[in-house]
């Protein structure tokens, strides 16, 4: 037997303190079709970036054919025959479609007919002279695929090729990928499981940075552990396939201890203005991201003291929804966002902040050059108006999040992922919010820390703050939510307060789980 085309031996990766990929091994034969699936934060993109050379793993080795490439940079690996796509189509917007493809074809001979053939292959034959920046999002994705195919790589890495596409476009992309010559091996990372089952002969399942299972498509479909992982990722008793190395650095320090409040919080729910039932009222929200419509006519409201969880697959626009409400993303006109009855001006984050919206962004985004104490002081500085209705003091927040108390002098890079998340929440609370937006707070956290976090969120809501939570970790979301809403295909597919009803679970499985429905036989 020949050596595999790609050998990945025990590579791992961490961002700062959070380990996002525990040691993983993979063997990809020439010409094979392999998929990597798993919930958000499972480490799929990280694995892809480690193989492509964008990220240098601290441990493990990678060989392409017989050749070790672990120390090679991305460009050098590309020259050895690794091609890749990015989550947002990476095409040169200033160049025409034909010029983009011409860049991929190194040999001068027959370049022009080859360019035209590559464009025809993805159905862009008529757009050869169109600048890539003027193509709609779906066609830019097709163009990127054509560019990467034209380079004729031995190994092709596709990062979320279906993200941001509508169902017919996804089918089209699937057809194009299937038409690739057998000489090229393909690794595809995608959330759209029908596409994955359609394309891949072998599948690797990751969850919370751990390698759960690898097998054929049929084995994966029937594997009970995979089913369980997809429904409730990062749960210790379900990840039995690879129990090693679950501990998160520093996370252990805070784990196990339930947060005890040394004194009761100064404000309780009944002091919150009761005459204003809906803290957040969003009407007909439309938003696009990189030209793709991500949110289409979203209407939702969140009441004081309640937690609403927004669930949905990767790329369904959860973050865009939260960012739009926080003023970081400009919605289309006619979108109305009101906080306590006051309409917000679009894309004015400072304005949103002053009206009582606080965001805990995805990836925490703490300020690298500020200590934790400085983060808290900055958030707690108030204008005169805000001082009168001040809700949280630094002491309150430290009572709620005691893990931060002895970390005040540290910089974010010196803290574990869980502690960073606590700091991000503390920063948001100290602005005295009416509405707290939490974007994937459990991402990259150890299970114990997740449990602690859900307790914290419940307590925050108990003080009368409205909470809107975007979450991929379904188990965590269900544990805290008063209402869940599921985003699918840019719309709210369904919304219910019946959190634990069997009907709800069945529908959730349909939208989020390892659904075999729709997969090609």
């Amino acid at each position: 037997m020949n050596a595999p085309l790609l050998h990945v031996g025990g590579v791992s990766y961490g961002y700062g303190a959070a380990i996002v990929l525990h040691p993983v091994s993979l063997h990809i034969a020439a010409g094979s079709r392999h998929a990597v699936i798993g919930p958000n934060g499972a480490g799929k993109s990280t694995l892809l970036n480690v193989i492509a050379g964008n990220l240098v793993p601290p441990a493990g080795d990678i060989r392409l054919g017989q050749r070790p490439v672990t120390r090679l940079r991305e460009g050098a690996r590309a020259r050895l025959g690794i091609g890749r796509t990015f989550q947002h189509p990476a095409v040169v917007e200033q160049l025409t479609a034909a010029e983009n493809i011409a860049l991929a074809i190194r040999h001068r001979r027959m370049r022009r007919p080859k360019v035209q053939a590559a464009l025809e292959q993805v159905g862009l034959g008529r757009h050869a002279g169109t600048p890539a920046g003027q193509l709609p999002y779906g066609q830019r994705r097709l163009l990127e695929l054509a560019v990467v195919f034209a380079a004729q790589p031995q190994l092709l890495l596709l990062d979320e090729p279906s993200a941001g596409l509508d169902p017919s476009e996804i089918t089209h992309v699937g057809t194009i990928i299937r038409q690739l010559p057998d000489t090229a091996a393909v690794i595809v990372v995608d959330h759209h499981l029908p596409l994955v089952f359609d394309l891949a002969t072998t599948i690797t399942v990751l969850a919370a940075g751990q390698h759960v299972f690898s097998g054929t498509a049929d084995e994966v479909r029937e594997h009970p552990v995979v089913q369980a992982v997809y429904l409730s990722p990062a749960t210790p008793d379900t990840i039995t396939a690879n129990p090693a190395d679950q501990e998160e650095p520093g996370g252990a320090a805070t784990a196990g201890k339930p947060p005890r409040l040394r004194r009761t919080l100064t404000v309780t729910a009944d002091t919150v203005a009761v005459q204003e039932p809906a803290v957040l009222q969003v009407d007909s929200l439309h938003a696009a991201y990189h030209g793709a419509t991500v949110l289409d006519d979203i209407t939702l409201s969140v009441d004081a003291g309640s937690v609403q969880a927004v669930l949905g697959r990767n790329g369904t626009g959860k973050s865009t929804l939260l960012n739009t409400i926080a003023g970081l993303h400009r919605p289309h006109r006619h979108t109305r966002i009101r906080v306590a009855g006051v309409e917000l001006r679009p894309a004015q984050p400072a304005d949103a902040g002053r009206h009582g919206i606080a965001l805990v962004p995805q990836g925490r985004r703490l300020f690298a050059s500020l200590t934790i104490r400085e983060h808290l002081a900055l958030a707690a500085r108030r204008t005169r108006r805000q001082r009168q209705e001040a809700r949280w003091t630094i002491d309150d927040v430290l009572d709620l999040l005691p893990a931060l108390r002895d970390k005040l002098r540290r910089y974010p890079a010196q803290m574990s992922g869980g502690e960073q998340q606590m700091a991000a929440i503390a920063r948001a609370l100290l602005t005295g919010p009416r509405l707290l937006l939490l974007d994937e707070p459990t991402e990259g956290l150890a299970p114990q820390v997740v449990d602690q976090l859900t307790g914290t969120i419940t307590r925050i809501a108990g003080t009368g703050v409205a909470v809107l939570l975007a979450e991929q970790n379904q188990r965590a979301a269900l544990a805290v939510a008063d209402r869940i809403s599921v985003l699918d295909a840019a719309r709210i597919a369904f919304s219910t307060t019946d959190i634990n009803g069997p009907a709800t679970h069945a529908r959730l499985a349909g939208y989020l789980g390892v659904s075999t429905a729709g997969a090609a036989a």
Partner: protein
Amino acid sequence: MGSTSATIAVTGLGGLAYGLLLFVVAAGLKLILGVMKVMNLAHGASYLAGTWLAYLFADGTLTGLALALAAGLAAATVGGAGLAALLRPLAGHTEQAVVTLGLVGIVVWLFSRISGGSSLTVPRPGLLDGHLSFAGHGYPIYHLVFIAVAALIAVVMHQVLHRSMAGIALRAAIDDPPIAATLGLSATRIRIAAITVGTALAVGAGVLGAPVLGPAPGVDATVLTLSLIVVILGGAGTNIRALLIAALVVGMVDYVGAVVAPGLASFSLFLVVIAVLVVRRQGLRTAVAA
């Protein structure tokens, strides 16, 4: 022997004053670069404007100096806000830089109209003129006072940046502008504040430094180049100490070099730049990714 070491001391004092002057200008440039991500080619022209104000108000008294400083700060406020407004509609680095070049043109034109294109000498205030004798050698009092004032500015800047809410807000805005905005920090206001304070530092340095490096054609380009070298050598991040060290090195090399080996001065500066960039393996990318 004694006279040689005294000469070295006097020259060193001059170098120190010159280095601190560059530090104040460079801190202003760094502030604008860090917050606005704009190459302000008019930064040297701001210094030139400051020296000209010092010339205009100089009447040999401290009052004249104070008046010049007040006028300079007022001009910097107006100019900074104006520049922020001018840069707002433009997206590209090149367009923004060209607009700052336009401001250079206006300052240079005004200066040439007023001075007739020649160098002007700015007298020192009478109280600060003269020399302080120590160990048989005279040290210019103005240099000593200037060093004290510039050192005070450095300390105040460090304290503001690391101890005050304004400094925390500024660092947050440099690190992650959108998230800083969600905390209620208006990006527009921080930009205006940064460009105003940055310009005020250059103009203020011009007013105070006029007797050291006075109004002359081309002084704007010299100051711009030297302060850029300081910023690049000072490295990334909001590190006042690194910026101060870089400024003192550049000031010493340029000033002492000009006295000791006039022919070598610019080479030695060039060699310092190369040496630092080679030694620091991360090189320019970290140096300028402020």
